[in-house]
C-alpha cells in the first residue's frame, strides 16, 4: 500500500503552504482523485490519521472528490466514461479514444483561517 508515503508528502506540502501563508488552523483538506489514479480513496482515508498524527493537520478533516475517467472518442467525438463503458465508445463502439481526465491526484483546496 503506497498511499501512506504519498499522503505524508501531501501533509508536508500543506504544512509548508500554511506556514508560507501564515495560516494558523486548517479545518479541511480537499483532495481530488481520478478514478484511474494509482491512489485508492479508501486506503487514503485509512492511512490519513497516521499521516497527520503530530502535525499541524492533526485535527484537519479530509474530504475526497472523485474525478470521473472520461474520454473523448476519436471516431465520433462522443464523451464517455471509460470504466462504465468497458473502454469502448457506447455510441460507435470504437476503441480509439483519448483520456480527458481520471488520472489526477490533486490537492484541490484547503479550508483554513
Amino acid at each position, binding site marked *: 500500500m503506497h498511499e501512506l508515503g*504519498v499522503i505524508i*508528502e501531501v501533509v508536508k*506540502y500543506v504544512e509548508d503552504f500554511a506556514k508560507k501563508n501564515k495560516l494558523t488552523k486548517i479545518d479541511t483538506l480537499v483532495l481530488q482523485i481520478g478514478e484511474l489514479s494509482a491512489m485508492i480513496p479508501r486506503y487514503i482515508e485509512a492511512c490519513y490519521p497516521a499521516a497527520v498524527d503530530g502535525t499541524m493537520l492533526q485535527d484537519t478533516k479530509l474530504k475526497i472528490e472523485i474525478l470521473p475517467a472520461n474520454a473523448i472518442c476519436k471516431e465520433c467525438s462522443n464523451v464517455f466514461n471509460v470504466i462504465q463503458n468497458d473502454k469502448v465508445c457506447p455510441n460507435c463502439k470504437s476503441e480509439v479514444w483519448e483520456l480527458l481526465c481520471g488520472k489526477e491526484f*490533486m*490537492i484541490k483546496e*484547503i*479550508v*483554513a*483561517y
Partner: protein
Amino acid sequence: MNTYKIIEIKESVFSNNDRQADLLREELKNKKTFLLNLMSSPGSGKTTTVLRTIEALKDEMKIGVMEADIDSDVDASLVAKTGAKVIQLHTGGMCHLDADMTKQGIDALEADGLDLVILENVGNLVCPAEFDTGSSKNAMILSVPEGDDKPLKYPLMFSVVDVLLINKIDAMCIFDFDIEKVKERVKKLNPNIKVIPISAKTGEGFDEWIDWLKKEVKAWKE
C-alpha cells in the same frame, strides 16, 4: 461569525514529485553521474543482472548501486562483494521509490565521482511506473517465466521505460513465451523502446545491453 476561508491550491501531488525528480536529474547531470532506474517484478533477475553488468563495466567505470529491498539487505551484501559502492535504501515497507527517497539515497551513496549508479527499485510493476525517480534512463526486466502477456496487464510500466530486458532466455524452451509477440505489444505502447533479450545466468545478449548502457552513459556526460 465565520472567519474560515477556502484557499485554492490546485497542486498535482505528482507534479511535486516531478519537480523534485527534475532537480535531482539536473544535479546528477552536473556531477556527470548517470542514474539507471531498474524496475521489474520480484525475482525477475534484477540483482543477477546488476552483478553481471558490474563485472562487465567495472574496469572502465566507477559504479554505485542502491538497493531498495523492502526489508532485507540480502541483495546489497551480494553486490558489495563485487567491490562496487552499494547502499541499502530504507523504504520502510513502501512499494515504490519517489524522487525524494532517491535523492536521499544518492546523498548517502556520496555519488560524486561515480559514472554510473544503478537503482534496484522495489519489485512491483504497478506504482514504480507512476513515480519519476530522477533517473537518467528507465529500464525494466521482464523474465520469461512471467509470461508474454505482461505488456497487456501492466501497460504503464512498459510505456515509461527506455529499455526492456527480456531475461532468462536460457529457459525459453520450458515456457511458451513469444518474444516477437512481446516486441509487437510493447512497440504499440512505446514505439521508441529498445528491447534486448538476455540471460543473466549465461551472459547471452549482454554485449548488446552493455553497449547500450555505455553509449547512454557517454551521452549523459556530454
